[in-house]
């Protein structure tokens, strides 16, 4: 299946208002409309690697939104293969740049901006953790590659044969790679199919978002992540004693 261009994808999500999104070195920032209201858009495309400069540009745009467009929903599009694996980036504290981006998003949340993520392409590892997974609600296109890593990569690092991992992933969706198994874990609220009216879906997502992190509940309900919620509750009960 040929991947749609980034521009085609923006148009699918935001219609003609997608022209308000600018792309520079596969980092996107701008303002568009969803459900008739102005939204701030940040994100990545082309499966780019996120480096210090990219994180700063995303953060700057979130700050701009907080300052100039109070309470405007922030839509985060994710298509990134990971954090830039680079020694200078690490030396300069890439983790801190990501932490700063997360702090900006947290400030936005507290100031009443709804945060919605749409995983559009690759949504993996540190690149997903540093902004997309921090949303109030996370959605994914069914064509998106969502998760920790494909089974082959997991096998290469853990030295566990691919066949073993594949067999186990039938009963443990956490080991499977993709938007659907990720949704079973509660990591994605809903997967959007090619035939879906994603503009309407996005508008609804914004309208219904709440700041309560519901992923553990979802994961338990959907059966993909059965332990997390109970363990958390046990800790909360034990600490209250």
């Amino acid at each position, binding site marked *: 299946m040929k991947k749609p261009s980034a521009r085609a994808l923006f148009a699918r999500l935001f219609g003609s208002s997608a022209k308000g999104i600018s792309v520079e070195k596969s980092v996107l920032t701008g303002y568009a409309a969803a459900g008739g209201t102005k939204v701030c858009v940040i994100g990545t495309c082309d499966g780019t690697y996120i480096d210090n*400069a990219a994180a700063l540009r995303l*953060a*700057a745009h979130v*700050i701009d939104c907080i300052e100039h467009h109070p309470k405007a929903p922030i839509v985060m599009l994710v298509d990134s293969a990971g954090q830039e*694996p*680079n*020694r*200078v980036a*690490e*030396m*300069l*504290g890439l*983790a*801190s*740049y*990501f*932490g*700063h981006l*997360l*702090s900006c998003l*947290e*400030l936005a949340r*507290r100031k009443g901006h709804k945060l919605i993520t749409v995983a559009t392409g690759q949504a993996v590892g*540190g690149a*997903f*953790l*540093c902004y997309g*997974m*921090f949303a109030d609600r996370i959605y994914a296109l069914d064509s998106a590659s*969502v*998760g*920790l*890593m494909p089974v082959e990569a*997991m096998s290469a690092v*853990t030295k*566990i044969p691919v066949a*073993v991992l594949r067999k*186990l*992933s039938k009963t*443990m969706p*956490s*080991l*499977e*790679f993709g938007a659907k*198994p*990720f949704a079973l*874990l*509660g*990591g994605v609220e809903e997967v959007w199919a090619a035939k879906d009216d994603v503009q309407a879906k996005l508008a609804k997502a914004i309208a219904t978002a709440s700041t309560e*992190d519901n*992923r553990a509940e979802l*994961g338990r309900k959907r059966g993909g*992540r059965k*332990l*997390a919620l109970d*363990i*958390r*509750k046990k*800790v909360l009960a034990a*600490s209250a004693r």
Partner: protein
Amino acid sequence: MTGTSLFHEQTARQRIAALVDPRSFAEMLPPPERLTSPYLAQLGIPVSFDDGVVIGKAKLGGKEIYIAAQVGQFVGGAVGEIHGAKLTGLFKAAARDQVPCVLIIESGGVRLHEGSAGEIAIAETMRAIFECRAKKVPTIAVIATDIGAYGGIGILSTCCDFRVMTEHGRLGISGPIVIEKWMGKKAYDSANRALVWKTSGGKTKYLLGDADALVHDSADAIRDAVAKLLGKSSAITLTSVKTRQKELEKRLKRFGDTADPDAVWKAMGVRDIAGASLASGPEFAAMAKRGK
């Protein structure tokens, strides 16, 4: 006796015992509850009763705290579903009870054997950390070993109000071996320990302002540093994020093309590079003119 041994050589349980007031630690979800990873069991990998993280309530200098210590020896301290849920629960409890939370980090990030469940758990813990911060409940990360804070846990550590490091501690996202594979040995020789530590070690992190304290590799020194931070919190405001944005822009502009960590040290006011390399954490902190 534990107070005099090197912090990085101790086990997670010993670290907690050495850090907090004597006999004040009460473990939550202790080993007899046998909350072990079903993923590891299915894969034929040994499990551990605490799933690689010890959590509980304690007192430090008479003040109540929540505390967690990751077990680096157990699957690299990596975060699986149970491990991560224990952390999420602890930070949520800290936010609910308005009790400071100290996290002694020793983790390479997500536990690959548990796939995406560990990744989501880290994201959930980040949210819980920011719940604490919204309520001005201090969150303090201690990074004191060579396993350090990497991957998602490296990112998570930067979500806490403060980071206390030792010169042994390392903080980053991608480890040296991954980067060497990616960029080649010329760009990053992962066997060059001096380079590795000057890239991600406590001294450089302190110098650039990413670690808030750089202390001796002992429980006493770490306790002192943590105790000083317990009453503080770093608020996230429009002013604070704008200031931070400028700092990080300035850092990138100054050093974005600098491959040599010694040049960064020099530019940050370290005159005697050889001496500073050999200096202990606190000696280094005294020598360094930190640039924010």
